[in-house]
């Protein structure tokens, strides 16, 4: 392929190889994350405590699951803003069903049920987008209203405080427990491993399956992907079904963490999650994005959310920092992209 490949050069050091595999944007976000963590840790050593680490990891589960779904949609060149409504709806309906049917009180029944409800609602999005060739922004805006309004108007508005016992037990379960300074023990919430499993699954799907490569192909150029033999209808179903599935699981975990099922929760988070994914290097026009970058974006967001108080800044500053980070990261990306383009390229790509 390249002329210098004829003479074998020694393999680059392992760190460099790792960085290359990682991608430039991800490396930049990682750098920012390290600087931020170091700064906060210097100002307040409590940041590096086991308790704080466990707390941050636990807080990133819901956001991370939602972000993984959004990542897949963004790579495919579409957008979804109905996922918080889907998460809230699957969570609430599952908890209601578990109240009505005591036999359902088992993790291996509750999570598949929430995931199935979410996936079904996601398939509705996929059908509307593909069958009528409508813009995903508009379709998911409509279904978000439909799902949330329908749930609150016809299913219920009451906050359920008596969650299924298995869900409560799941939320309390911890591993790597250590004695906490104030008494008791702190450990890593078991729910964090749901995020780990989901991240691994989405990574395998995107990078090791034909359909996953199809998602990238579709985001790069839908018509080219179609002519290359990808069935766009199935891809749409797969993508939006997956978003719904992840949203359903995220919703249930959110309820477990909160110890109640509040149908008003989660909605309103959509732009924040999209911001985290964009921060992680995913392109809003499709074709680019990685699981590692997304997880880093989520980590940055969670640290910003939870750690400003540790350094004595009022939590109001959180959004200011988030806005500046988004503008800086997208600004640098836009600058780099323009530098590589010929002078005839348009100055404006919406």
């Amino acid at each position, binding site marked *: 392929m390249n002329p210098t490949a004829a003479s074998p050069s020694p393999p680059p050091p392992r760190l460099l190889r790792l960085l290359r595999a990682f991608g430039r944007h991800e490396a930049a976000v990682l750098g920012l994350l390290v600087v931020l963590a170091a700064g906060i840790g210097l100002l307040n050593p409590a940041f590096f405590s086991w308790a704080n680490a466990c707390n941050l990891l636990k807080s990133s589960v819901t956001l991370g699951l939602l972000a993984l779904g959004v990542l897949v949609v963004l790579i495919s060149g579409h957008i979804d803003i109905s996922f918080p409504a889907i998460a809230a709806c699957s969570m609430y309906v599952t908890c209601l069903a578990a109240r009505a049917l005591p036999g359902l009180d088992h993790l291996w029944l509750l999570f598949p049920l929430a995931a199935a409800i979410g996936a079904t609602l996601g398939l509705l999005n996929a059908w509307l987008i593909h069958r009528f060739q409508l813009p995903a922004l508009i379709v998911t805006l*409509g279904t978000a209203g439909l799902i949330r309004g329908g749930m609150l108007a016809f299913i219920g508005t009451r906050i359920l405080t008596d969650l299924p016992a298995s869900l409560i037990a799941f939320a309390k379960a911890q591993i790597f427990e250590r004695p906490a300074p104030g008494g008791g023990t702190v450990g890593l919430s078991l729910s964090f491993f749901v995020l780990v499993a989901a991240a691994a699954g989405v990574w395998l799907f995107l990078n090791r399956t034909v359909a996953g490569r199809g998602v990238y192909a579709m985001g790069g150029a839908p018509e080219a992907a179609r002519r290359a033999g990808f069935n766009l209808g199935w891809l749409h179903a797969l993508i939006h079904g997956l978003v719904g599935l992840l949203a359903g699981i995220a919703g249930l975990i959110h309820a477990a963490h909160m110890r109640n099922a509040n149908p008003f929760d989660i909605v309103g988070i959509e732009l924040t999650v999209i911001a985290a994914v964009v921060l992680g290097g995913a392109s809003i026009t499709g074709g680019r994005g990685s699981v590692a970058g997304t997880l880093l974006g989520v980590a940055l967001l969670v640290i910003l959310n939870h750690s400003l108080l540790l350094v004595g800044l009022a939590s109001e500053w959180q959004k200011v920092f988030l806005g500046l980070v988004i503008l800086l990261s997208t600004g640098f990306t836009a600058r780099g*992209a323009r530098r590589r383009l010929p002078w005839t390229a348009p100055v*404006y790509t919406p």
Partner: protein
Amino acid sequence: MNLRLPAWLRQGWRRLPWRGSTGRLLLLTLAVFAGMAALSPDRFLTRANLESMAFQFPELALLAFAILLTMLSAGIDLSVVATANLAGILAALVLTRWWPGLADGPAPFAVAAAGITALAAGGACGTVNGLLIARAGISPILATLGTLQLYTGLALVITRGHAVYGFPDALLFLGNGLWLGVPMPFWLFLGAAGLLAVLVNRTAFGVEARLLGTNPLAATFAALPVRGVLFRTYLASGLLGGLTGLLMIARTNSAKADYGSSYLLQAILIAVLGGVNPAGGFGTVLGVSLAVVALQALGSGFTLLGFSNFTREFVWGLFLLLIMVLNRLGRTNRQP
């Protein structure tokens, strides 16, 4: 029968948007009014109800106008509600804290100070968006996603999350008063709609914005002032946000950083329902106005009928999907 109408009348008739999506929207609006009037005959078409509707919808209409303007050039302004809140808060602080004695001084002076502050703040927010999009080359959705967080954050930092309230009566008149028997917000809405219609249909800027939205590459090669058009688009959107902020604080007598958090998605919904193409190039002020009136009538009617806000949200979503599907089916029938 060969009835010869005067030429201007015939042309005017042809120009009226009976056909296409605006025509369907007009029918829909009339159907909503007729349906609501039939369902609650003694309450819907009363003066009190129509008046309360005319107080409520202009805020949303101005925000939807900002979305319309940015969607013409295939962009979007996600920060418009944040801009409105920030502008409203700055105007509120000028009135209550930063300029002692202003509220007790001559009334027109206080209103003018609040108005200038709100518009200047909106214009500043719009300028930042415009520079980020036209100069730094960030795509509109990302730039305004960032400034949405930034402006909301600044508003939170300034107010520490508390509400600012207690404004002079002269300002409250702007949001709650009647002039010639018609609510003041409605006059503001009419003025803004008229100005915007001229801007979109009768100026070079409007044509250039639509051409840019239809095909950015062609617009660049045609040597359109792409950066200038983009900058002015987001400046105008920011100014509309500032005006909305003024109207919000005048109507509610308070300013809060997280006011109207559901307005953004509603404004996008209204713009799209009003026939604006999110992919750029098409949208009319009349269509957006009809959409906002239809949704307000639907909402008020539902409230009169005793349905919850949630039913309204459900029906709005249904409406949006239905209109989009119908528009799409209509288009495929014509172009086989």
